[in-house]
């Protein structure tokens, strides 16, 4: 493995609890800069909690999320919003809000309460719409779009915020195959062309392996393994984390690990003769 990458965003002995229930207990994690990191794990393992704590939605009970060495929860939230963009899993869509209007609201941290609409704001919105392929739909109402278009509109809004780091909570959930690939490719392009650091929670292990540079596997609120997909996603880890016995083969297109669960009710087919 290569030398550890530099990291602006880190979880430092981070503990997060919902009331009496501790979800994260002293988690340490470095997010590599200018890379795509996918957080995977079974339902309830704390992956969304980790992402939301890094996005300062949840306050740590102890420990901290550090951005350039400073706790994000202690910095003024608007200045953090210049560095850290966040796309939650579910959002509310006001009736009749147009895509252009939605994306323009992503400029809030740069404008404040009374700041005028500047050329920089307009350029950021145009760029975000172009990058997501939403320019032709700019004057359409968000609540009339398809699921994939809607998700791209939300991503465009976070892009208009122009942050070097982007956190996304299950950006592909509820999308069909074509739209999932569309969103993941968009994130790949943003990372390739602009060097945006992407951190996302994903459900699909293969999507994580194929589109991320760095995979973080979690179980019961703990980071079990992290590193390059090929090193992390092994039959032992999948068995350990998901409790599923599997076989792993390189996928024929990208070579990324492809997880094939074994069927406990049947003998694994030994020969591939027929």
């Amino acid at each position, binding site marked *: 493995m290569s030398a550890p990458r530099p990291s602006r965003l880190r979880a430092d002995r981070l503990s997060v609890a919902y009331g009496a229930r501790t979800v994260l207990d002293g988690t340490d994690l470095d997010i590599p800069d200018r890379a795509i990191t996918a957080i995977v794990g079974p339902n309830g393992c704390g992956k969304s909690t980790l992402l*939301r704590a890094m*996005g*300062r*939605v949840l306050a740590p009970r102890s420990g901290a999320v550090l951005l350039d060495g400073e706790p994000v929860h202690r910095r003024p*939230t*608007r*200045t*953090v*919003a*210049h560095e*850290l*963009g*966040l*796309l*939650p899993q*579910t*959002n*509310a*869509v*006001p*009736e*009749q*809000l*147009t*895509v*252009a*209007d*939605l*994306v*323009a*609201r*992503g400029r*809030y*941290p740069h*404008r*404040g*309460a*009374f700041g005028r*609409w500047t050329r920089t704001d*307009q350029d950021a*919105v*145009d760029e975000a*719409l172009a990058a997501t392929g939403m*320019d*032709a*739909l*700019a*004057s359409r109402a968000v609540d009339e779009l398809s699921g994939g278009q809607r998700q791209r509109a939300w991503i465009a809004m*976070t892009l208009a*915020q122009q942050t070097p780091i982007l*956190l996304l909570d299950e950006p592909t959930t509820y999308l069909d195959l074509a739209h999932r690939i569309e969103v993941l490719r968009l994130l790949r392009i943003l990372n390739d062309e602009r060097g945006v650091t992407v951190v996302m929670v994903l459900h699909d292990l293969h999507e994580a392996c194929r589109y991320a540079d760095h995979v973080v596997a979690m179980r019961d609120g703990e980071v079990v393994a992290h590193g390059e997909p090929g090193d992390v996603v092994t039959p032992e880890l999948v068995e350990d984390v998901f409790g599923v016995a599997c076989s792993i083969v390189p996928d024929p297109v990208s070579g990324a690990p492809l997880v094939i669960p074994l069927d406990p009710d049947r003998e694994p087919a030994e020969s591939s003769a027929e």
Partner: protein
Amino acid sequence: MTSAEATAVPARAAIRKRALRGRIVVTALLALTAAVAAWALALGSSETTLLEVVGAVWGFGDSGQVFIVQQLRLPRVLTALLVGAALGASGTLMQGLMRNPLASPDVVGVTGGAGLAAVLAIGASVPPLGLPVAAAAGAATATGLLYLFSGRGGTAGSRLVLIGIGIHAVASAGIALVMSRLPVGRLGAAEVWLAGSLHARNWTHATAAAIGLAIALPAAYWLLRRLSVLELGDDLAIGAGVHVRHTRTALLAMSAVLAGIAVAVAGPIAFVALGAPHIARRIAGPTRAATLTTAVLVGSLLVLAADIIGQRLFAPTSLAAGVVTAALGAPYLLWLLHRTGKR
């Protein structure tokens, strides 16, 4: 706009179109409000022409007419406009805060709290000028309870509405109880106040409302951009750099202050705080400065129109403005529910 133009610089075109729409709507409403206000000044038991009215406002013409216009009609018209403006702004903030188009200070108990305090004050024979103070205190108490019961960080959406409905129910029951105990001599005064009326409102009322609005309305505009991000969801707003807890508290407080101004001056005028923001969104689009301005102007127009209708429809008997808005608002609300149900 042709589709070729739309694809050239779509975002710019969309944003420019939206800004233009806002300006047209606001200008048209300003003109309409001015016209209706002038007409309202000319209406009354003594006939006055529009020209005479304009003169009388500035103190020219027959001294009797000047007195009627300056001392009787003008403060009443201004109070109606200011009360409507406060209600429109209050509803806009509250519906955005609760992410519920059916939320309003009259639904979540703020107005109910004011009503209960007012009837208690009437029962205790508080002098007339103490009544607005009591009403404002009642509105503030109801809002304080709303905030308290919503708990830490729990001011989200539907929960807040449900707590508010509970507070409203308790306030209504309290009003009924106090009314049943009031001596017959004071029952009339309580009923008149509870109907929500602009009858005999003078310069004291207009000035008080104007001072309140001069403070609260700029605060509402200051909160508006935060609200436009907050209404997309709490987590998203945090990500975009909005301090959600502070913003929610400020929005609730400002909405209550605005509703408190209206109810202190005119009593509970139903439906305007609910309907005006709704109408504003339909004609000016989703939350932004032009939408708030539109809601303010629509609120003004609704209250003024209700007062004119109340005075003229069954003349010489007059109806309270609050009775008129309730009578017109109920069918509108039903239609609204029907429409939302279909979507």
